[in-house]
Structures are given as structure tokens and as C-alpha cells.
């Protein structure tokens, strides 16, 4: 599949690299919040096992029973504080909602943003993007319905068919369709955000409408751009998971931490790459559109020819 604007893919990567401080910043916030989320449980856990020889069951391997035993112990050192964990996750959600405006502004302008300019952009777009997120939740309802229909189809086939595979294939098919729809919806909303920033569009329903038309008219180009980067992100994540789970020695705690954080870093990086590519794509698109506009030239000033009026001397 050929891209109508092949530059956006690699230029987006270049732009992400150029403004990599944004990636690092998001990653750092994510990491700090995750540490905060884990601190309560881990503190209790440390009190319970740091002076115990039984902790080797977790160091030299990963004994499921040791985890379960810790979770079921009377003082429950491993019982995660779900409320606090969820709270930190929501803080990150708000943070991302806030910072997306600044990030997109940076990509759209491709200029070094001073702190004040960056946060001004963040605040400027915050309520717009909040409204967009609410619209997104509405847009996800049909996707949920498709997933539910797929689930019901799976249940029906699983119940009715002698072989388990028709149901399995139905589930696989549903998963592919749902993932495809999720990508399309996200792409649509990504472009709406870009339009909101680029055009300073205040009305989000209009931004969504424009983005829908834009995505529909340039679907292959945009989806291919989005899909390729998503694929790379998933591939990197899977590779990291494979290394962590299958390759690293159970005792390699530091390496495991590095690998797991690289997975998150790359995940954030690829998401920012998508943002940057989409911004570049739109900038390019607008430039092309403007170039194709017929240049207005003022109509030539009518030259008034001197009218030669024949004067009949006889009549004068």
C-alpha cells in the first residue's frame, strides 16, 4: 500500500526524536506515579519478607504459590491497595489529557516551546480535549456492541458446534474487527485533536466532523500511517515481554527493571510518533490543499479605449 504522503511516517519519527524531551517527560511522570501506586503494598511486603529466607522462593524463580501465600497471609502483606493504585492511574489519565494539547502544539509548530508556551497550550486545549474524550466514550459504544455481538456469536457457536474451532475462529475474527474499529476510532479522534490545535477549532463537534471527512477521504493513507506505527509499538512490546519472561534469569532483577521500563518507554515513544506523524501529515495536507487553491488575480483594469467620435462638423 502506498502512502499518499510517505514523508509523514519517517518525518514523524524524526520529529519525535527531535522533541524527545516530551517522551522522557511523559515516561518520567508515568514511572513516578507507578512507583507511588506500588509504594504502599511494596512497603508492607518488604517489612514481611526482607528478613525472611523464604523470600528466595521469589528471587530464584517465580513461585506462584509464594505469591498466593503472601496474599493469603493473615497480615496480607501483598494485598494490593487497589484504590490507591487506581487513583494513580486516573491521575496519569488527567495528566495525559492535560499535556496532549501542549505536545500536539509542539509537533504542529515544530518550534522549541518555552515552559510557559507549552503549559499555556496544555491549558488552552484541556477542556476541548476533555470534551473530545467524552465524545470518544460515546463513539466506543458501537464498538462495544460489535464486541458483544461477537461474544454472543462465540457463545452460540461454542454451544452449538461439535468442534470448538468455529467458535474460536469467530472469537479471533471478532477480535480483529474490534481492534480494527478501535484503531479507526482512535485515528479519527487523533485527527480531530490535530485539527483542533492546527485550526484552533473551538467546536469539537465540528473538529470531529472535519476529521471524519478527512479520515474517510484519506483512509488508506492515514490508516496505513497509524497501523504501521502501532505494529512497531506492539512488536517492540512483545519483544520486551519475551526477553523479560523467557530469556532473563529470574535473579536478574535490575535487567528486568530496565527491560520493563524500556517497554513502557518505547510504548510511549511510538504513541508520540503517531501523534507527530499525524500532525505532520495534516500540515502537509493543508499545505497541499492551499497550493491547489486557484490563485486569485485581480481582474485586469478595463482599458477604456478612447472612443473616436466622429464629429460631423456640419452638425456642430
Amino acid at each position: 500500500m502506498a502512502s499518499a504522503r510517505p514523508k509523514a511516517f519517517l518525518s514523524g519519527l524524526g520529529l519525535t526524536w527531535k522533541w524527545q524531551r516530551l517522551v522522557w517527560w511523559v515516561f518520567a511522570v508515568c514511572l513516578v506515579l507507578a512507583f507511588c501506586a506500588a509504594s504502599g503494598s511494596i512497603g508492607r511486603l518488604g517489612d514481611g519478607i526482607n528478613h525472611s529466607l523464604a523470600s528466595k522462593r521469589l528471587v530464584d524463580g517465580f513461585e506462584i504459590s509464594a505469591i498466593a501465600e503472601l496474599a493469603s497471609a493473615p497480615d496480607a502483606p501483598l494485598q494490593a491497595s487497589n484504590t490507591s493504585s487506581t487513583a494513580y492511574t486516573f491521575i496519569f489519565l488527567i495528566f495525559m489529557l492535560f499535556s496532549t494539547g501542549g505536545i500536539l502544539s509542539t509537533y504542529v509548530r515544530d518550534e522549541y516551546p518555552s515552559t510557559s508556551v507549552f503549559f499555556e497550550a496544555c491549558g488552552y486545549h484541556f477542556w476541548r480535549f476533555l470534551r473530545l474524550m467524552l465524545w470518544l466514550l460515546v463513539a466506543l459504544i458501537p464498538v462495544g456492541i460489535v464486541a458483544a455481538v461477537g461474544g454472543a456469536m462465540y457463545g452460540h457457536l461454542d454451544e452449538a458446534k461439535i468442534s470448538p474451532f468455529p467458535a474460536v475462529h469467530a472469537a479471533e475474527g471478532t477480535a480483529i474487527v474490534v481492534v480494527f474499529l478501535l484503531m479507526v476510532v482512535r485515528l479519527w479522534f487523533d485527527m480531530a485533536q490535530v485539527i483542533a490545535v492546527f485550526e484552533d477549532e473551538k467546536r469539537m463537534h465540528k473538529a470531529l466532523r472535519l476529521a471524519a471527512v478527512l479520515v474517510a477521504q484519506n483512509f488508506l493513507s492515514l490508516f496505513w500511517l497509524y497501523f504501521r506505527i502501532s505494529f512497531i509499538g506492539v512488536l517492540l512490546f512483545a519483544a520486551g515481554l519475551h526477553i523479560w519472561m523467557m530469556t532473563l534469569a529470574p535473579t536478574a532483577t535490575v535487567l528486568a527493571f530496565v527491560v520493563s521500563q524500556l517497554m513502557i518507554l518505547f510504548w510511549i515513544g511510538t504513541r508520540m510518533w503517531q501523534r507527530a506523524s499525524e500532525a505532520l501529515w495534516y500540515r502537509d495536507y493543508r499545505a497541499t490543499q492551499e497550493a491547489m487553491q486557484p490563485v486569485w488575480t485581480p481582474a485586469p483594469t478595463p482599458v477604456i479605449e478612447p472612443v473616436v467620435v466622429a464629429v460631423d462638423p456640419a452638425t456642430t
Partner: protein
Amino acid sequence: MRFGRLTCGFVGILALSAAAAAQSPAVVAAAKTPLPSVKMDETQKGGEKTLSVRVVAYNIDAKLDPVKHTIDATETLEYLNLTGQPQQTFPFHLYLNAFQPQSTFMTEVHRSGTRGNGPGSGWDPLHYGSIEVKHLESDGVDLTSQMQFIHPDDDNTQDKTVFQVTLPKPVPPGGTAKFSFTFHDILPEVVERTGYKRDFDMVGQWFPKVGVWWKNAWNCHQFHASTEFFADFGTFDVKITLPRNEVVGAAGDLVDRHDNPDGSMTLHYSSQDVHDFSWAASPSFTRVEDRWQGSAQPVQIIVLISPGNMSSAQRYVQAIKGSLTMFDKWYGPYPYDRITLIDPPHGGEDAGGMEYPTLITGDTSWNMPKGILLPEIVTEHEFGHQYWYGMVATNEFEEAWLDEGINSYTEVKVMDALYGRNSFANLPFAQMSEDQAQRLMYLSDPDTDPIARLGWKFYSNNAYGAVTYGKTATMLLTLEKIIGEDTMRNALHTYFMRYRFTHPTGTDFINTVEEVSGRDLKWYFNQAVYGTQMMDYEVSNAHSDPLKWWESSIGSNKDAVYRTYVSVRRTGDFQFPVDLVVKFDDGSSATEHWDGQDRWMRYQYDRKAKVVSAEIDPQNQVMMDRNWFNNSYTVEADARATHKMRNIFVFASEWLSQVLAWLT
């Protein structure tokens, strides 16, 4: 029966992971100590040598309607009165009537769940099942109208799982009572290991079965949510008529097959010295066969695989062979010439993990990873029941620990021998051993009920499972610490050889263990089997101070003597002797043996070395100890495990954040 939903829970989680490396079965050498010789008791009956005292002789002629999932059958039962007294009133089980909304079974399920996936707390009409005796006569006398439903365990007059009938005249001691039934079964959609799923029919507990005269009374309990079965040994001669395209697995030798003019076939099965007969049929089964040579005779292995599960066929076969080998070597010979495994189809898993004499049901799925040993575990467990239930036919209603608990213990031993240490889950990134799986089940509800409790009297189904399976296995694994593994194996061998084809009790088992070990173990069994005491030991502190702590130069004095205190506590009520190992920084160590009678003990050492660590039960043999993490104390903290767990927590939190941030 496998109390398998804990297993499935783990499998459900772990099955999402990547396929794991295969584990090659490796049979570990058996016990070094020779097994004691116990003579096989063979019973003479009419000059014929039989393995069991044959009390019952069933002749059943059944016809399956695979579309309606119903069975119409006639049954004759000859009951040999060996009770030593005249018998006139006989009780019978009608187990299939449990699957009705007002039955005791469903009432208990509604209250506190069931053993398997089960019908849940709600009622699904598809789970309706019944057995209706249309006609009953004895010696030509019609007794149909004399049938009276009884409810020996509760006041539920709506329960129809037991009836009794009184004969016109008593049957004298040594005499034979003959009953003739005509009955109609409606199979439920698979529930509690019985019923149909699409074209699959699992036919268990499907005919009127007489109670057992035991402890000088009739023993014929209602069917409960958490109980199983109890029956006398005898013979079964069963004819099954069904369509010719059906593939049948049955708990008997196929002695004849007859093709009927109407397109059906009649299969004739015969089985001796067993106490039940079940069968399964499906046109979709694929039959896999193998053979195994035991010390008694060759055994035919038949595995009927459901569609999609062929990848598990050889796993089943190898597990059966391995189990046959280990049981034959450790506990005694397998006396039957066959063993059949039924693999339930997808959606019919609730028929899985069940035992009948010479017929068991497995549990797998089309995508079962090799690192999850569920098919092997279930196969081993159900095969183990051929010994602990099939031959040593204890009362599963009243002393479920004797079959499920002992079987869970031998499951640990055999699985470890066949598949190595991580015989429950063996994935590259996570492992679990069988003994730990049993211990976890025990820890899920360790002290609600004593092990020796009537099966239907447990607080909940979880308590029943945790105590009957997990706690009993853990209790026996801990018993190894006292009497030794070889002695334990010898005790089980003796118990099996002595009580096979009989109905022993818990007292018989305990007496056998005491006899073989030569020790009085009542102090242990009284706490572990008949009590609910919790066991938990901890090292509460270990530290060293200079003996002359008031001298300021002590830090630079290499010959300084340190006084070390190690304090240990028994935080539970279960008294058990434990070993304590104290290690010092000069490489020396001290081992203490504490009888655990007091609540705490403090040990004191004066050495030119400081304490490094103190540990109770360093070999982790005391499996009943509730918390192993407080069994040791190291002076220097080692936070590697905490760091590892932090990695996982942090990553999980970050990933969750990223998923949620997708919305922005």
C-alpha cells in the same frame, strides 16, 4: 472427583501466557526400602476365586435416546444378605433426582455453591434430571406402590434421591433378595459430572442402587452438593442399546456386540469386583488405545478424545501409564485388565475430573499449554481413585478425606515422581509444585472445619474442598516429617493391601499408619484430623550483642565473644515439634529441636561469632505451617524479592496507565 476449579482458575490465568517448554516425563526410582509383604485376600464364592465379597449382582438392559438424552432400562438386582441378620426393608439411591430445584442437592448448591462449575446458585431448567422407577417387583410381587421416599440426612420432604421398600417377607442371613426395576432416566445438561452436552452423553449414577449395610445399619445418604458415593462390591452385566454411530466407553469388558435390524446396536459389558458402572457415548469421539504391562496383568488403556483435543491424547495416555507404574510399584497391583478415560467435549468440562471403577474422565482444552499439567494432574488424580475409592471403598459421604484426601496426597507423590518438582505448572516465567498447590488449597480455608467431618456438614463447599483435599494432603505430607517418606509409603501400601475391596474407616487408616510406623501418633491426628487448630511458628527475633557490651573497645577486638539470642514463637494452637537451625558469621551453625509445647522459646549462644540467620524447619517439611515467610529471620535484610515484586507492580501500574491514556 477432582475439586478442580482452583486448578482451572490458575490454568485460566496461565493459559493466557505463551506456550511453554515441554517437560519430559521421567520416572523417578521408587522407594529404596522394600515394601512389606501383605497377602492378597481372595474370597471364595462357590469355588470361584473373587477379589471382593460380591454382595450385589446387577443386570441392566438400557436403551439410550441420544436426541432426547433419556434412557429406558430394566434392571434386576440380586442382593446377597451378608448382614448377619434378616433384612426386610431396603433403601435405594436415585441420584439423578438430585437435579431438581427442590432437592437437597440444589438447596445446598443455592446456599453455598457446588464443587465444580456446577449449576451455580441459580436454577437452569437445562440442568433438570430425573430417574423415575416405573415398576418395581421382588419375587413376583409388585412393590411399586410400596416405594417410599426417605430423607435420612435432613427434613427435606421434596428430596427424592433415596427411597426404601419393604419386602413381604424378610430375607434371611445368607439369603438373596431379588429386585426387578423398570426405570426411565432424563439426563441433565452436564452438571456435577453427569449428563449430556450436544452429542455427548456421560451416564453416571444412573440406575437404582442399593445402600450399604455398614456399622450394623443401612447407610444410604441423600445426594448432597459436596458428597459423593458409597456402594457394595459385586458384578455388573450391562447391555446398552444405542445408534451404531455412537462410540462408547464403559466401565466393563465388552463381551458382545449385536447389530439390531432398526439400525441400532446393543453392546454387552461385564464387570466384576466393582461397586459402580458408568458409561459415556458420543459419535464424535476418537478412540486411542495403548497397553501397559503391570505386575498383575496387562492393562488395556482406552482414551476417547473429544473433537479439538487430540493434542492431549498422548498426554492422557502417558499420564495413565505413569500412574499405573507408580501405583503398581508403591501401593499395590492394579487388578483390572482395562482403564478407560473419557475426554469431555468443550462446554462439557463439568463432566471432567470424575472417577468410576475402571473409568475416569479427564480435563483439557484445545489450547492447553504443555507447561500447564492439568490433563496429567486430573488423569493421575482420577486414576488414583481406582485405589482410594475404587478398591479401598471408603464411605465418601461420611469420610471423604479417606478417598479425596489420601488421593490428593498420592497425587503429589506420583506427579512429582513422573514430572519433576514443578508438576503443577512449569512455565519459563512461573512455576508451581503439586505439594504447593495442595497447600494453597489448604490455606484458602485452613481451620473452618476438621478433616473428619461428614461431607455435607462442612461450612461451605470451599471449606469442604480446602479441608478434604488440600488440608488432608498437607496433613499427610507433614506426617512424612514425623515418620519418614518410606514409612509413609509402606503404611499406604499396607493400608491398600489390607483393606482393598472392603469399606475401611478413618480409624483403620490411622491404626495402620501407627502400626507400620511403630509410633503413637494420636497426638498428631487428634489435632490435624479431628481438630481445627492452626499451625504457625515464627522466628520473632535473632540478634547478637558483645558479651561485654559495656566495654568501648569491643568493636576492634577480634576475640570478642558475642551473646546471641534467638526467640521463636508458636503463634497457632497446633503443637508440633520443629527444628531450628541458627547460622553464625564464622560458618558454624547450631541445630535445636523444640517440642513446640510452650508458646515460645528463647535460645542463647555465647560464641566468637554473630548470628546470621535463624530458621525453623529449613527443609520446609512442616507443610501445615500456615506462614513460611515468618519461619526465618536474617540479620541482614535481603530486598531482592521486594525489588522484583516492585518491578512487577510498577510495570503493571504503568501499563494500566497507558491503556487508560489511550482514551486521551
